[in-house]
């Protein structure tokens, strides 16, 4: 291996990482600049003075905590419901044999072709009839719908890995099938469920499209909606936007640090095997 090759290799890695990370760096350091420095026409690449003023303002001036809580509430519910529905369905599809199994699998997978926007109008009509427009419940329902089909795909790598012998042994010991599923099988797939949980949480935490249409009043706004308001102001308060961008990105980053590698496995194993 020549030195030139090694240098080229590290340069290529740095270039790729720079593309992925530099915009993030830019947001983070700008969130700590004072307002005059932030809005100076000559940007500084490292803050002259660090300030937490934008973060303080976020919590003092705005119902930011309420938005944060709404988002967390929706995301946690979606995660729980998705985990329950799709782990049962995935067990059924990958472990049980019955007529129509393949058709069902196809139906779940092809709900991906569905333009989300096609659901928007009829769901709005139905939700209006049910009187749940402008409630967080409406968001929970629609997020589970958009996330569940892909979950089946994600769980495949984990579910098909568990040896049947384990279920056999438990059944010989007299456990019922439901007990086998809940006590033996699902714990063995814990990493897959963690990966799915990460995906469900992330998708609901970041969602904007359905939230924009289904949520009307300020107390029910989720974080992306709340932030979109400041972005549309005539005089954009960049400090607030930078600070809130950093805060909204923290939960996904923490979750990925914990469950990221299983997520990657769930994502890729379906395509590779």
């Amino acid at each position, binding site marked *: 291996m020549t030195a030139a090759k090694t240098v080229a290799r590290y340069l290529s*890695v740095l270039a*790729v990482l720079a593309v992925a*990370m530099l915009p*993030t760096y830019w*947001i983070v350091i700008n969130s700590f600049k004072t307002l005059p420095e932030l*809005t100076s*026409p*000559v*940007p500084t690449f490292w803050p002259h003075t660090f300030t937490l003023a934008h973060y303080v303002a976020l919590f003092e001036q705005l119902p930011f905590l309420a938005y944060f809580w709404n988002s967390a509430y929706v995301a946690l519910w979606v995660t729980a419901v998705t985990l*329950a*529905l799709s782990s*049962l*369905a995935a067990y*059924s599809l990958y*472990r*049980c*044999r*019955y007529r129509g*199994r*393949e058709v069902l*699998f*196809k*139906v779940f997978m092809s*709900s*991906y*072709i*569905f*333009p*989300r*926007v*096609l*659901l*928007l109008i*009829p*769901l*709005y*009509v139905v939700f*209006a009839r049910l009187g749940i427009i402008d409630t967080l419940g409406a968001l929970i329902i629609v997020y589970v*719908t958009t996330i569940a089909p892909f979950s089946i795909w994600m769980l495949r790598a984990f579910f098909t890995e568990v040896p049947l012998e384990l279920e*056999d042994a438990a*059944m010989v010991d007299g456990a019922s099938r439901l007990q086998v*599923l809940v006590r033996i099988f699902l714990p063995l797939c814990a990493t897959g469920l963690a990966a799915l949980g990460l995906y469900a949480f992330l998708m609901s935490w*970041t969602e*904007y*499209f359905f939230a924009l*249409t289904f949520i009307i009043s300020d107390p029910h706004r989720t*974080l*992306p909606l709340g*932030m*979109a308001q400041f972005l549309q102001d005539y005089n954009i308060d960049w400090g607030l*936007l930078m600070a809130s*961008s950093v805060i909204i*990105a923290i939960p*996904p980053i923490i979750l*990925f640090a914990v469950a990221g590698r299983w997520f*990657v496995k769930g994502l*890729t194993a379906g*395509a*590779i*095997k």
Partner: protein
Amino acid sequence: MRRPWPAGGRLARTLQADPYFGYLLVLPLVIWIVLTIVYPVLDAVRLSVLNVGYVGAAGRFVGLANYGKVLASWEFWHTAAVTVLWTALNVALQVVGGLVAALVLNQEFWGREFARNWIILPWLFPSIVLATMAKWMLDPTLGVVNYLLLKAGLVAAPISFLGSPVPAFLTATIVNAWHWFPLFALMILAALQTVPKEVMEAAEVDGATYWARLWRVELPSIGQVLYVVIFISSLWAANVFDVIWLLTRGGPSSATNTFTILIYTKGFQEFRISEAAAISIPLFAMLCLYGIWYMRRFMQEGVEGATS
């Protein structure tokens, strides 16, 4: 390649032959999907033959009038062109970007685990953060991009990236592609790791250049994954709403007006719910045809392989 059933497991397999447990477990999700996808889609068909304006208004049956109106409009075909262009450019950028990043990260280097894990960063950001970043960095007076371009002497005056059609379209495309490429990079990287090292080394010993190895050995062996990636990327790109809406609202001069934007504005800004539904149905039909064609043409593996 089918994953064979593991040896043994006779009892569990016998019990699996009893269908009711299987039906019972899948039933909740089936009910959920029927209520929230199948029913709404049928309802969209119903709405499309009425003349409902805003949600809650009673509609009168107008037959196929909405379809006629929509399909005869310049707007529909302009939007179709924008959507196709948007999707194609996004797929190209995302897949090529993902492939390049995957090839780079597939090398041996110090800090490889870290790089492979955190390349995902752009994908973890909500669209609102993407929009904030883009608007902040590209701002004509405060943005760092214009500052650097001016300083390097590449432009004479600040560019208004979101102010005119072509730059706005390209900007939104790049922002969206930046969001998605890490996900595809990870999928392609996982595939690259399954290419046996010996094969690559043998090709190198035989004197094949880097490009020859890439085109003749590496890419063909991950072909199936590339097809899947292109498919997923095209479906997701065609569905994008957030980034476009937050950056340009479909403008300027409808340059970024894809179908998702058009349907949203028709339904919820102009209050023509029935017309919006009449746009959705042809869109759905087109996507279905595209999906069926693509899967038949490029994806050999059927469902059986996935479920067995």
